[in-house]
């Protein structure tokens, strides 16, 4: 089966005052259509860097990224991005923020239809009552909901999420994870999400990609998460397998992430 997103031998080098810094090297990854993948790794290892290259917001130094058969060279609305900080434009209301993209993507639809799309997605994420407020009047969680609505409303081929729940309290986080899962299942999107929360990774994804520490970070290991969907937190917590996988991820982060695969005789798991 051919991959929906294929990343081959990706390299990213930043010029710094102290000479070039290779943040990511030899990064290979393939995503099937409809798959939900999370990437975990220590802070600063290069997760956002990889994600922004897939988003087309940052140039690749080497290697190729192919999305649905086409090489990624630029940013575009076919990839919905939910940023690490919910960067809504502060001079627009939540509704206008979502509309900005909708006007762009559904330019053939009537004004009424476009408004309906925006209202629909905003109410899906639970913002029906506050969609005409500006970001300044919304809580962190509400802003992040709006960010998710903005990304989903464009019905992109793929979702790229950069620690979207990193700054939220756990209750809001749980709620938004479910919002995200519902939307993802309903629309059959392909999703790549960066996180450093092990439980979040296991609850959401089909596979967890573990990145080694930078510089020259790469894929250290990949873990398959085969819990049936739809999942519930309780069901996971009652499954001994959950604790085994969790232990595996934590062990990677604590011990193995410090070495590039190969150096210590642990090749990256082939990702079938």
């Amino acid at each position, binding site marked *: 089966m051919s991959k929906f997103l294929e990343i081959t031998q990706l390299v990213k080098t930043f010029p710094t005052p102290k000479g070039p810094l290779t943040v990511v090297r030899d990064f290979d990854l393939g995503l099937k259509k409809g798959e939900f993948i999370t990437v975990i790794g220590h802070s600063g290892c290069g997760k956002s860097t990889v994600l922004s290259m897939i988003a087309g917001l940052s140039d690749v130094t080497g290697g190729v990224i192919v999305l649905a058969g086409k090489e990624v060279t*630029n940013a*575009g609305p076919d990839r*919905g991005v939910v*940023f690490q*900080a919910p960067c809504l*434009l502060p001079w627009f209301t939540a509704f206008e923020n979502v509309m900005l993209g909708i006007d*762009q993507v559904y330019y053939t639809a009537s004004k009424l239809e476009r408004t309906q799309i925006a209202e629909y997605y905003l109410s899906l994420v639970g913002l029906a009552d506050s969609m005409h407020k500006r970001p300044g009047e919304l809580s962190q969680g509400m802003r992040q909901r709006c960010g998710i609505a903005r990304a989903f409303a464009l019905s992109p081929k793929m979702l790229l999420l950069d620690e979207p729940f990193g700054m939220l309290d756990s209750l809001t986080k749980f709620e938004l994870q479910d919002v995200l899962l519902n939307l993802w299942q309903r629309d059959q999107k392909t999703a790549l999400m960066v996180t450093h929360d092990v439980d979040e990774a296991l609850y959401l994804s089909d596979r967890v990609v573990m990145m080694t520490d930078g510089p020259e970070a790469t894929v250290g290991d990949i873990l398959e998460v085969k819990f049936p969907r739809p999942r519930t937190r309780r069901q996971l917590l009652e499954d001994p397998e959950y604790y085994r996988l969790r232990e595996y991820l934590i062990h990677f982060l604590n011990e193995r992430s410090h070495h590039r695969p190969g150096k210590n005789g642990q090749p990256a798991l082939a990702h079938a």
Partner: protein
Amino acid sequence: MNKFKFDWLILPLVGVLIVLSVWHGVAGKKIFVTDAAGAIIEEKRIGLIPDLPNVVETWTSSLPYIKEPFAKRGEMDQGILRFTWYSLVLVAQGYAIALIIGVPLGFFLGLSPTFTKMFDPLIQVLRPVSPLAWLPLGLVLFMRAGPEAGTYAALFTIALCGMWPTVLNTAVGVRAVPQDYLNVGRVLKLSRWKMLTKILIPATLPYMFTGFRLSLGISWLAIVAAEMLTGRPGAGGFLWQEYNALIYEHIIFSILTIGLVGLILDRLMSLVEARFKATS
């Protein structure tokens, strides 16, 4: 509440009183020299700076202009608010030109490093040049423009001097637009026009308004030079005319008027600016 009154009312009043008394102390005073019979033979001024009018003289002499602020007794003899109004109209026109040219220039500077490298040194050289220096050039430029040449030269000077804060602040604002906002635009593939109107301009507005306020201050500063050298009626033209007519009291009166109007303009712009920063 009392502390507030003290800081905002009493202390400034004390300051004003101190300055007024120093002024009055060094200023001249009129005295009459009489002969033995008591008849006036000579009128002369004494004091540290004999020709400087004192506070009382300035006040009595200015009173008619304040009492009838809109009077028009002649081209160069009008109520102070009427003069101020003429000056404001001229400044408003020059200021509008400054903004119309300054904002796009600022955007180009902010957006294009090449453009900045090309023109920034030049701007740094032109920026400190005084309005007094620009005006003669303006007069030369518009020499063949007929009877309105003076007006054009004045507008040229006001616009040119007032433009720089708007240009520079806009450029700084454009450079300071967070990369995140630009990324939102790139992800949505916004057209250049939408990128400008939906993202760049709103993000730059707070900076632009700071520039607008400073520009207004400088435009007002240039008014005296512009009116003096072109002989137009207005707060600054009045000042120069009264200097030539040896009515020195009115020089001080004009200075105070110009200062007060400048203060009011600045405060008004601050209000607009604050409103804008609060809502964006």
